[in-house]
């Protein structure tokens, strides 16, 4: 009986992926305990988040991919409507208009678009698979850019970046010609001054600070400098769990969320970093493997976009904490405190599992 229950529960769950995700979440909880100043309640709250996210992952894993195909366009359309609603009458919190009040709770439509955009694009490319022309790519780019600009305007640079990345990965994997890609990159570089002109002052400051954090050690350079001190002083083996001075004496800002990696790295050192990177690489590798083996264009594109977006998460966060990328508000997936990102990441992982396990079922 019990074994049958497990069989039912585990039918669409990818064990490798789950093991790596589980290990990362355990690392996250351990680090969170230290980052929150040994707060059991925060750890318990995060465990609740994990439980919810795991359920959502399981559900996503049990949705057959062709249902997703049908859901793609509606999700995108609803997401767009909500984004516009946010822009018109969203709730302002911390100087940014991100939240939409829906009855009892408030939601962040930009999170939905992280899934909505790649779904819609994959749906579009899958539909016109045989006859993809340049104008299809142009249309796809517009489908990405509108939500990205709306989110960037909120302003939420981190999420905008991740939506853009997700969209870009779909377009890239769908086979946009290298020539156009190179052209786009050049055009992008050409547009940098334009981008600069529409950026908020604080966003510009972040870019300037990346070039030289010491320019403004107490202002926008503070995060970068303190994180570098945390990492550097951690050394090869770290200061030991709960012994990070940067973390425990409040020098590290946002240390349970966006900068949790600095806490981890201070306490576990280069050695810990290697383990963490290996775990992340394993998740990404498994995602790429699933993508490689996916059977339809839609599932390939979705799996690839999810995997590479996950990588983007990791890269942007670790790059920001270690000071090689500007500070954008992107959490470290599976490690940072917070339910929203955990749910959206595990939802993506669920889809990966679904793609992998349903393909087998269909084949046999």
């Amino acid at each position: 009986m019990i074994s049958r229950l497990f069989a039912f529960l585990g039918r669409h769950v990818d064990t490798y992926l789950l093991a790596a995700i589980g290990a990362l979440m355990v690392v996250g909880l351990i680090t969170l305990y230290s980052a929150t100043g040994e707060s059991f309640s925060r750890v318990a709250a995060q465990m609740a988040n994990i439980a919810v996210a795991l359920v959502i992952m399981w559900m996503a894993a049990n949705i057959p991919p062709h249902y997703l195909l049908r859901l793609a366009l509606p999700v995108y359309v609803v997401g767009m409507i909500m984004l516009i609603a946010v822009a018109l009458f969203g709730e302002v919190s911390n100087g940014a208009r991100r939240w939409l009040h829906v009855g009892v709770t408030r939601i962040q439509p930009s999170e939905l678009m992280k899934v909505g955009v790649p779904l819609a694009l994959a749906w579009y490319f899958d539909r016109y698979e045989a006859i993809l022309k340049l104008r299809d790519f142009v249309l796809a780019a517009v489908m990405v850019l509108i939500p990205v600009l709306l989110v960037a305007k909120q302003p939420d640079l981190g999420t905008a970046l991740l939506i853009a990345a997700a969209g870009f990965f779909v377009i890239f994997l769908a086979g946009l010609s290298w020539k156009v890609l190179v052209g786009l990159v050049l055009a992008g570089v050409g547009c940098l001054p334009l981008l600069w002109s529409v950026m908020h002052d604080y966003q510009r400051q972040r870019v300037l600070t990346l070039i030289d954090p010491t320019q403004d050690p107490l202002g926008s350079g503070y995060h970068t400098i303190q994180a570098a001190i945390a990492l550097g002083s951690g050394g090869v083996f770290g200061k030991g769990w709960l012994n990070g001075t940067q973390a425990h004496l409040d020098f590290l800002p946002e240390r349970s969320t966006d900068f949790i990696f600095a806490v981890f790295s201070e306490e576990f050192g280069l050695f810990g970093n290697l383990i963490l990177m290996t775990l992340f690489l394993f998740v990404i590798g498994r995602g790429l493997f699933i993508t490689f083996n996916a059977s339809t264009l839609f599932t390939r594109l979705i799996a690839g976009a999810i995997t590479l977006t996950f990588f983007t998460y990791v890269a942007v966060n670790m790059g920001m904490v270690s000071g090689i990328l500007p500070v954008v508000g992107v959490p470290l997936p599976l490690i940072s405190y917070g339910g929203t990102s955990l749910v959206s990441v595990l939802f993506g992982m669920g889809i990966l599992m679904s793609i992998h396990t349903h393909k087998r079922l269909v084949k046999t």
Partner: protein
Amino acid sequence: MKLFRSARKETAPIVLGGARRAELRDHQRELHNFQMRLASSAGLVLLFFFLLLLRFVYLQVLQHDYYHTLAENNRISIVPIIPNRGLILDRNGAVLAHNYAAYTLEITPNKAGDLETLINELAQVVDVSPKDRKRFRKLQEEGHDFTSLPIRTRLNDEEVARFAANKYRFPGIDIRARLFRHYTNGEVASHVIGYIGRLTQSDLDRLEDEGVAANYTGSDFIGKVGLEGRYERDLHGTTGFEEVETDAGGRAVRTLRSTLPVSGNNLLLSIDARLQDVAERVFGEHRGALVAIEPSTGGILALVSKPGFDPNLFVDGIDPQNWEALNNSPDHPLNNRALQGMYPPGSTFKPFMALAGLELGKRAASHTIYDPGYFVLGGAGGHRYRDWKTGGHGMVDMHKSIVISCDTYYYGLAQELGIDNIHQFISQFGFGKRTGIDIDGEVAGLLPSQEWKLKRFKQKWFAGDTISVGIGQGYNLATPLQLAEGVSVLANNGVVFRPHLVRHIQNSQTNALTSIEVEPVGTVSLKPENLALVRDAMVDVTRPGGTAGAAGAGALYRIAGKTGTAQVIAMKQTEKYDEKKVLERHRDHALFIAYAPADAPTIALAILVENGGHGGSTAAPIARKVLDFYLLGKDPEIKPINDEDQDEHD
């Protein structure tokens, strides 16, 4: 594969034959393309992780030491603990300078925003006087915006409570417990003790040069003048340090290590505070100086410079109004006249001249001259040097020349001795050079010589120059301290001690006393009979018939003294000095030197009263009261000495 696909894509037409193969090939190529894209993505992932790894190695291995230091600096802050400043006590243990703790309100300007508004608001909670505001503005001009500057000092308990309740309204204003210096006797001995003041940039630069700046971390005050200035190193003590682990907000989390401060050492003075007090009281409203020395040690018993000032005004930064008043007063209360005032010694120079004549064999005690009331240089028709007494003193020997202060006698003696002999002999008593007293600012005075004149004026010495030097005029200039030192050497039979204010330095930890050296620094070789002769004459100065006879009347001990009157403005040959006609500030200075008891002196002193007129009438009575107090314990009534016209003359 096809099944799979067509099951999902009902709309896709099923193409047969070659076209279908073509589609399959096409599909195959598309899949291959996708896989290439995926592979390049994987390559990108690996490349980025490799870059990250390089960055980690750079930060955590190559730069580890650097960041380790930064992290330690981040968390550990060194909090200085300011030592208690050493006390200053008089020879009987009376406290002259001590410290007390009090609350102050301090503003850190760069944290405070609009200062004017802030201070106005503060004034509604605690009293802020216009003086406080002015002083604050002055400190702000001198100091830095990031140091905290006092707006109010010495808050009472009620004010402390009121401010504490309203603190949230005043960002940048903090309440601090501080140690304050207090000078117990206020103006008394102000020129001896000096004062401390706020540490300025120039102080810091100097400390930096001396290599002791670290010891002043956290210190706000430093000794500026007087003993507070000279003995700064002893008084300041050693600053302690606390290594505190702080969080990012600067709050101390725990103490890692601490080194306790070492209090400054105490100064035990040779000054007798009661004598000092008496001396200042009997000085009354006169300007001038008094120095009393213990001859057998060189220890200074009292050092007065009038007018004085209240050193307490300087302690927490003097307000501009008081500063203006002190600095611009025509009486120059901040000048230490005892050390810095140069006055012609006048007739107080005569005993030293007499000894020079005796010791150098130029005069025998019995040698008698006739004084017609003037001395003529270079035979008949030469320049006439007048005696103070018209008509002269008649027959005058050495004893009488001192008792009645005959000028003519010393004109002749000076000529006979010659300037270089005078210079050589009398400089042994400390004239013309710094005595080496242990406070700063002392001037050397002037005991002229041929060499000096050549250097100073590029002129040769004229015979006429020597004549007025003989009566302590001319180029002759001495500080009251030098006069006291000179008479002290006389009282001590020629043994010279360096005059000093500090007798012992008391270690604050062990209470052990380090004595200031009381070894003689030199001896003037004097024959006992010559000394006795001059002493007897000086004793007769204070007896009926002497120039200070009235001042010495009824004394229960013998006083050896000598009056003096120093000209402030030069008189023409034909002019007669008339006190009543001369501006107060152009009147003669009154001088008196003395030691007592004459046969076993325990005190030697010199007094100068600026524009006081005659030594016998103005200066000697002050000396008498000081001596009466010191030798007999007689407290004089506070009534100041007035310039009653006595018919005694110099």
